[in-house]
């Protein structure tokens, strides 16, 4: 049971990311009615606040998970989660400089 529990941060991360992208899309659709200048501001604000909230929730889940599980397999899974978390950064760095 430890392995699935250790995967919890990764599932939470993926779920929160999907939720944030969906929320931003909704904010874009609603604010677009007021024109692009409003849409531009609203979308960025929703996204940045959402990123902070996602970061805080994720940090809390990880901390709880690490306290609970200290077996080698759990640590490995947490490490994999960390890599998933950093993957956007890694992908972009690999792309730079562009061809």
């Amino acid at each position, binding site marked *: 049971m430890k392995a699935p529990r250790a995967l919890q941060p990764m599932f939470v991360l993926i779920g929160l990311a999907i939720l944030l992208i969906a929320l931003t899309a909704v904010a*874009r659709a609603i604010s677009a009615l007021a024109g*692009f200048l409003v849409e531009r501001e609203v979308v*960025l604000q929703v996204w940045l606040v959402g990123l902070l909230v996602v*970061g805080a929730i994720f940090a809390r889940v*990880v901390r709880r998970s690490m306290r609970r599980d200290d077996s080698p397999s759990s640590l490995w899974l947490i490490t994999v989660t*960390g890599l998933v978390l950093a993957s*956007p*950064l890694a992908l*972009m760095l690999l792309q730079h400089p*562009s061809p």
Partner: protein
Amino acid sequence: MTLAGVLTLGYIGISSYIAEQLVYETPKPIVRTPANLGLRFASVTVPSRDDHINLKGWFIPGVLPDGRLTVDRVIVVVHGTRTNREGPGDHLLELTAALARHGLGVLSFDMRGMGESPPAPLSMGNLEQRDVLGAVDLLRSGRLPFPELGRPRIIGGLGISMGAATLLLAAAREPAIRAVVSDSAYADAAPLLEREIPKRTVAVVGRIPGVFAPSALVMARVLYGVDLFAARPVDTIARIAPRPLLLIHGAADDYVPISNFQQLDAAATSPRTARVTTWVVPNTRHAQAFKNTGSVYVARVVAFFETSLGSDHTSAGAAA
């Protein structure tokens, strides 16, 4: 884990802010009109195709040698990025006037998000091609000023820089554009932006480190639905054949390097039916070919349209 989280959050956050700055800039005002150059014109509203954004433009009848006005052949003129239909940087209004004085009608307009047109995100041609297609729709079936001159018989296009890239994308989809002049177009917008973004400064962040450029393009898509990776005229330019195409590029262009011209030329000439003419203008930087060569530029472009669109068929018109 904490370090990965903080770095990734910071990276995405800063990239998002850069994307927000990238997709829109306060439009430059229009100071002069064709009347300042002694031409008759009418202001028009050009609804973009599909998304119906009301763009602001000028409809300028051509002036025949005997002074009569004509709209028999109309050229859709498309300006570059972060400028407007007056195009103070590349003297677009002067070029527009020169075409009109050679008997070519002109429809020039501000692309979405620029000049006097409504605010909209910049997509480097991907969405703006709808603006060009809307201009074609207006000429073919919309309500035009100067009703006594009738409706245009044939339509050509001339674009500069991003306007050229946008025109290439539109012409590939719209066969009613019978001849195209592309001046300083890029083959693919993404590499250009990735190179140019680090040269810019944005509020709060200052000069943008190059490492944020690719992610800013991705964030423009996630946040504003603007796919800057899709602005690739090189993929569609071959579809313009067998219609005539004139590719112009400055040999000293350091903004859209000459390699873009070579890629476009190679792609455009790939069909057996292609009719491509090229002109590499020596010692000329980005979008400065008309400014540097003046009457030579006009003579080449007018000769190209005369050959491609035929001579004016008008038998009667109003006096200028």
